[in-house]
């Protein structure tokens, strides 16, 4: 009997520690009459990056603000690091680092003063605050600018300082609200590098972005949100496969051959563009299919200028998912 009891204990323990550092159940939030979140469900596993992807006004920032205890949800259950964001707000605050949309650094203080102050406000000792400030200045390539006031920093430096400030207490969970919006390509790459390092150090990260490339590159899982709901969730590959297969695009060399080529191909679901002389054919991850197509062209004596394989991008996913909704809405409106 006792053995069984012990076994069940372990089971229950495992269930409690289900590895989800962030859980969101049925989260709703309205500002007055405006419904911003309409029942969000999400989990983020420990040590992974989840990207919240969505257009402006989809509810990304509101979700982050609720997770970081800045606003109180209307309904739903939200836990961060095992703590309830409403009932245990102080414990949540001790577990997170938040980098908001604007670089919230004190302009008049130097980079070093900013970081040391943040350490003190995270309730680290003076010595720890000093040491962490030094470490972060090095890590974020700000040593040379450490003694200058933040007012003199470039946009990229400010963002780095801002992110460094949220990491002073090495929080296990980091929220990044549009961390690279408005950065030049070099600074964006530097920021991506930093975010990947954080993940390598076992931090759990939730980031919001409007850039599909960013979500594709950084995130383990992506949640697409639109008008306050999660409309798709999964790995980048999952989402892409929802949109469909890869496509083979052929460019016919001579304009006079184009009609002939279309006839010779003769497959369903073919997209053609006579002006650009392109044919696009869905293929199902099979190289022999490509060979078949080329053989067919050769038999018909059609010269091919170039061919390329197109994998669906997250842009396709996004447009498809949000487009479907708009279409559905239109149908609904008409039937009313």
């Amino acid at each position: 009997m006792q053995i069984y009891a012990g076994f069940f204990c372990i089971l229950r323990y495992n269930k409690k520690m289900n590895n989800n550092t962030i859980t969101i159940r049925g989260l709703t939030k309205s500002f007055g009459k405006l419904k911003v979140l309409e029942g969000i469900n999400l989990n983020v596993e420990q040590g992974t990056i989840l990207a919240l992807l969505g257009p402006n006004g989809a509810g990304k920032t509101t979700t982050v603000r609720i997770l970081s205890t800045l606003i109180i949800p209307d309904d739903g259950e939200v836990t961060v690091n095992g703590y309830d964001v409403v009932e245990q707000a102080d414990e949540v605050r001790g577990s997170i680092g938040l980098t908001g949309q604007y670089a919230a650094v004190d302009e008049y203080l130097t980079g070093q003063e900013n970081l040391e102050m943040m350490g003190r406000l995270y309730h680290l000792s003076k010595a720890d605050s000093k040491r962490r400030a030094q470490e972060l200045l090095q890590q974020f390539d700000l040593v040379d600018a450490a003694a200058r006031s933040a007012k003199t920093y470039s946009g990229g430096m400010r963002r780095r300082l801002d992110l460094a400030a949220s990491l002073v207490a090495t929080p296990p969970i980091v929220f990044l609200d549009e961390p690279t919006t408005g950065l030049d390509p070099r600074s964006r790459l530097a920021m991506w590098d930093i975010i990947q390092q954080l993940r390598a150090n076992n931090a759990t990260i939730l980031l919001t972005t409007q850039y599909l490339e960013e979500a594709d590159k950084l995130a383990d899982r992506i949640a697409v949100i639109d008008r306050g709901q999660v409309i798709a969730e999964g790995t980048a590959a999952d989402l892409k496969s929802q949109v469909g297969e890869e496509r083979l695009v052929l460019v016919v060399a001579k304009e006079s051959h184009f009609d002939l080529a279309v006839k010779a191909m003769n497959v369903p679901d073919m997209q053609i563009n006579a002006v650009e002389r392109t044919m696009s054919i869905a293929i199902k991850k099979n190289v022999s299919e490509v060979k078949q197509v080329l053989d067919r062209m050769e038999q018909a004596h059609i010269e091919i200028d170039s061919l390329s394989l197109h994998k669906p991008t997250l842009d396709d996913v996004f447009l498809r998912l949000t487009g479907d909704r708009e279409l559905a809405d239109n149908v609904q409106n008409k039937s009313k």
Partner: protein
Amino acid sequence: MMNSQTATQHQTHTINPQQHSKLYWIIVDTWVLILRSLKHIFKNTDQLMGLVIQPIMFMLLFRYVFGGAIQTEGTTYVNYLVAGILIQTAAFGALTTSMSVAQDLQRGIIERLKSLPTISSAVMTGHVVADLVRNTISSFVMILVGLLVGFRPTATFREWIIILGLLLLFTFALSWIAAILGLIARTVESVQWLGFLLIFPLTFASSAFVPTSGMPTVLRVFAENQPITHVIESMRALMVGTPMNNHGWIASIWCIGIIIVAIPFAAYLFRKHQTR
């Protein structure tokens, strides 16, 4: 770009937040944020210059341009003027608190502080205390300039201490109102006109620059009974020996009353910003 060695080290140190009582953190957080605001005084030199130069211009303007046409009883006009200029400077100076609070809101700094395990409303206390220090500096400059243009105070050392105390009490009270204004206005731009709308009539419809006796009845009744006049009259009485009457008591009660109401209200508004 990145120093990967230090980057991978970054989680190997164990850094633990210290554990202390709530009261301990109220004091420490407030102190940290006071230090922050104090650093602003000398780093934001444009603001500091503005706060010193504007009242000097007012002093010279009233002393030499308008002063000849204004009759004051019992003392010279320059002696009459200094108390008014000091209080006007303190009143406009308090708007720096509004600006700082609005700026912190706009820049997302208050948002960030609220996401920390910090007593975040202490950010306002920081700005208010910085305001006291800034005001003491500009008052000192003001009195020096006054002495150069003919101000001849009769106050004893003890009276100067009371003058400083009253000035700080007044600044403290007004600075908390300014913090509330900053929370309501939300942007630096709206602070500028809202603050002007509040402070301008209060300082000019008072006995700061001219005796109230020459004002039309309605204005005179307002000017004689509003708190700023009582504060100015008390300062003037202490500095150059004009009649004190009940001004001292009324001024102190006004200031303390404002403080008692304004601090909890500011804290309430600050929290309310969160649940919006």
